[in-house]
């Protein structure tokens, strides 16, 4: 086993795997890439999310990034030869106030129309006709985004993993990285049963990143926030779109299997690298809120509740790249604030380009870590859930 690697990726979720894939494509065979994952590949947020993507964001930067991310997912599917079950199932935001409606109309005029992804505003009566089990009583309008959609997160993880198994990227599961430190021009990476050297480290460890960054004396404004999510038994598939019940910051939809899957941000919030446990309080409150919007809840049975992290930044947008005052050879990808799976692959592609060529791709520039000390925050105000 080689003990010294050119590139070490810490984290085996969607970002880590996409990074490994892109790097392996771009570097020559003599370079070595290793990936450490503390559990099984995808065991972090990558297998805990609701499997959705959207292109409609509150800022120009994120909207552009999201459009490219969605296109990249389609392209990646073809490249990898694995069915990601990508589907333009659409999003509907249910709006309850004039103010809120104006918010969406402004975004539509300012960004979405210009970028070719306009939303349409639908009458609540139309929604009621199509989905009689939804409560549209106080709804002023539905904001419909047909360009948004869904995918199967496990399929994407498996596809990448299988593709990587045919490259010379080494993936070590059940290998939590416990210690990282600089050592004579290299980085020493240690964990239970392994110790290796690497020239470059890319931290792609999702909600667990702050602990690694701390050891390298890098501080980024990242806050993991625990989110709980539930799934019900399957029903006949009727609800194609992803519904956002803005009154309670609650979202739900139906998986292809027919299960209703949904989540909401409910107080009290839990922040930090806390145990990914679930609370009775959340389940009871969530069900109460969901009952406001879905009618036939007498027979809809909850099967399972789990949790995962949103890794939040002050401007609700991800961090990509490195800062000049960081030690050489350290890169970061993360802080996706709730839209990591959909943006992860494209972000990883851009980061790979930067790592290999040294040139910062245009789409990556707004997301550099330098924006925080420079106070050039992205004006992002659309987080779902």
């Amino acid at each position, binding site marked *: 086993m080689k003990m010294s690697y050119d590139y070490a990726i810490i984290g085996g979720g969607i970002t880590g795997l996409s990074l490994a894939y892109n790097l392996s494509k771009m570097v020559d065979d003599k370079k070595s890439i290793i990936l450490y994952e503390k559990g*099984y590949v995808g*065991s972090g947020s990558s*297998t805990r999310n609701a499997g959705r993507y959207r292109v409609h964001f509150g800022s120009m930067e994120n909207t552009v990034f999201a459009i490219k991310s969605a296109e990249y997912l389609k392209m990646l*599917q*073809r490249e990898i*030869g*694995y*069915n990601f*079950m990508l*589907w333009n199932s659409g999003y509907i935001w249910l709006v309850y106030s004039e103010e809120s409606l104006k918010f969406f109309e402004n975004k539509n005029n300012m960004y979405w129309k210009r970028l070719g992804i306009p939303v349409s505003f639908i009458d609540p009566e139309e929604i009621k006709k199509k989905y*009689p*089990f939804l*409560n549209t*009583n106080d709804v002023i309008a539905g904001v419909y985004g047909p360009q948004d959609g869904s995918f*199967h997160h*496990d*399929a994407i*993880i*498996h*596809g990448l993993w*299988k593709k990587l*198994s045919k490259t010379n990227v080494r993936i070590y599961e059940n290998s939590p990285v416990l210690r990282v430190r600089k050592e004579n021009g290299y980085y020493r990476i240690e964990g239970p049963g392994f110790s290796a050297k690497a020239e470059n480290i890319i931290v792609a460890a999702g909600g667990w990143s702050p602990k690694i960054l701390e050891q390298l004396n890098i501080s980024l404004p990242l806050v993991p926030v625990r989110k709980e999510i539930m799934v*019900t*038994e*399957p*029903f*006949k*598939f*009727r*609800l194609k779109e992803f519904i956002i019940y803005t009154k309670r910051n609650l979202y739900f939809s139906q998986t*292809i*299997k*027919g299960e209703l899957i949904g989540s909401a941000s409910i107080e009290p919030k839990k922040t930090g690298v806390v*145990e990914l*446990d*679930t*609370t*009775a*309080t959340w*389940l*009871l*409150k969530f*069900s*109460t809120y969901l*009952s*406001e*919007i*879905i*009618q*036939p*809840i*007498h*027979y*809809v*049975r*909850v*099967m*399972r*509740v*789990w949790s995962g992290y949103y890794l939040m930044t002050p401007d609700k947008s991800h961090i990509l790249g490195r800062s000049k005052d960081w030690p050489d050879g350290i890169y970061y990808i993360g802080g996706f604030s709730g839209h990591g799976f959909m943006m992860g692959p494209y972000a990883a592609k851009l980061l790979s380009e930067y790592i290999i060529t040294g040139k910062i791709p245009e789409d990556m520039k707004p997301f550099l870590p330098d924006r925080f000390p420079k106070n050039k925050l992205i004006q992002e105000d659309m987080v779902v859930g």
Partner: protein
Amino acid sequence: MPSQVSEDPSDGKKIDEHLLINPLNSSMKYKRPRFPFYNYPWDPDTRIQYNEKIIYTFNEDLRKVVKIGQKKRVKPSLSSYFLKKLAPAGFQYRWPYRRIWGILVKIIPKMTNLPNIPQGSGFSHPVNEIKKIETECLIVGAGPSGIVFKKLLEKKGIESIIVEKRKTGGHTNLLSERVKRHWLGEIYKEIETDIENVLETTTYLGEFEDYVLAYNREKRIQYLIKPKCIIFASGGITPYPVFENNDLPGILSAEFFLELLKTNNISRNTSVTFLVDGEWGKTVVEEAKEKLKKIVVISKNKILPLFDTDEVQVFDGIEELRVWGREKIRKVIVNNKDNTFTIDSDILVIALNRIPELNILAQSGFQIFLRGNQISLKLNGKTTTYKDVIGEARGTFPNNMKNSISEVLENVENFLEEVDEDRKKDLSKKEIVLSVNPESFVFTNNIDGMKIVCRCQDITLKDIITSYNEGFTSMETIKRHTALGTGICQGRYCQLPTIFSLKKFLGADPNKIGFFKVRPPLEPIELSSLVIDENEL
């Protein structure tokens, strides 16, 4: 066999004599229904699962009486075939297939025979009451071991409550007095007198981070409990064995069978075959002997001495089991080394020795290790709650129950008296060893055919072997690759058959496969049962 289908049983009229089961959509072969035929009572009852309702009269407490539809000849549905291919995670298809998928995905899901999202009336729902309880000891399950334990606690002056999802007595209520007396032995006297603080019709939903949640269905109360000790007297379940056509209608678990027998829903002329491997099987047959004319007993073990061959026909030492029928089971086929026997059967009852309900234990923090014939449960010492297991859930029932109960009692006493946090943690670190028979799970010697391992998602033996060989070698990854365990039972019935099948056919190490994480709620619970008044929280 013809059946006289009569009217709605709630009319008071006698329902049909013969237990007739209609096939409805499930796996791609034969359009068979899913597991409502196997388990009870929390399983999706047919009022919402299927387009056509089926008669299974449960006992009055459960109040689930559904009418049978007309016999309908149905062909396997193409859509269910495709959905099985499309729905699970991750499959490799070349470009033309992906294009077709993109088109089909718009129509196929609508063609499944899953029930419609039901239409209710109105959007306001009655809230459930919230009751917060702090207690020294929470006992889960008011079966014999739970009752005995509570009485001992009372004698010691330790305060406790029991949650029981049915009625006091648990599964023993399924047995007639005569058989119950014999099965329980000296414990029978102990459980006769009343105990206090039993929350009946209250389902234990699991240990959340903030509270233990339990729901009383009858009174519509959500209990938010903070116990110092949790003692699991949660009993056992009938294992789900793997053999050819093992999800045909007519294959019932012993519990379900007893339920139907008790409520007089199996006619005397029904021919029943019992798959047994020990004392519990004998007890079930004992119960059935009075009411059925034709009983056949089959077993892998040599169980001939347990039965009176004047009364029942016994085939023991069998190696393989197959079931045949369309649309329901009609024949049970067994073979040993030398011969094959075909038994005409209307029903096959799985009366194998019950295995501990592991989901409840795993959810509460017990790690499960498998060593040959043993299951080892280990609680990691992070807990500030003392947890232990008694009775059938510990595998000590009914003969050796008393010894382990007194040991647990002593531990509970010590824990409650202990002030030192570290000492408390030490008391919590224990290893509990149970027995399980790997042979109870696999009744076949080859992997082909319709051998269902996960009957919620129609995952066959061949599917999991293929998945394992593709590199998905742990339960978590097999689950994600095949969708095994993501259905209603949440792994309750499919994890152990998967592990033992992989061990048998591929020599896999059970502990490397492991179990996937069990999360609450431990039973599927209606959203309407979770609606509360926020201000009461």
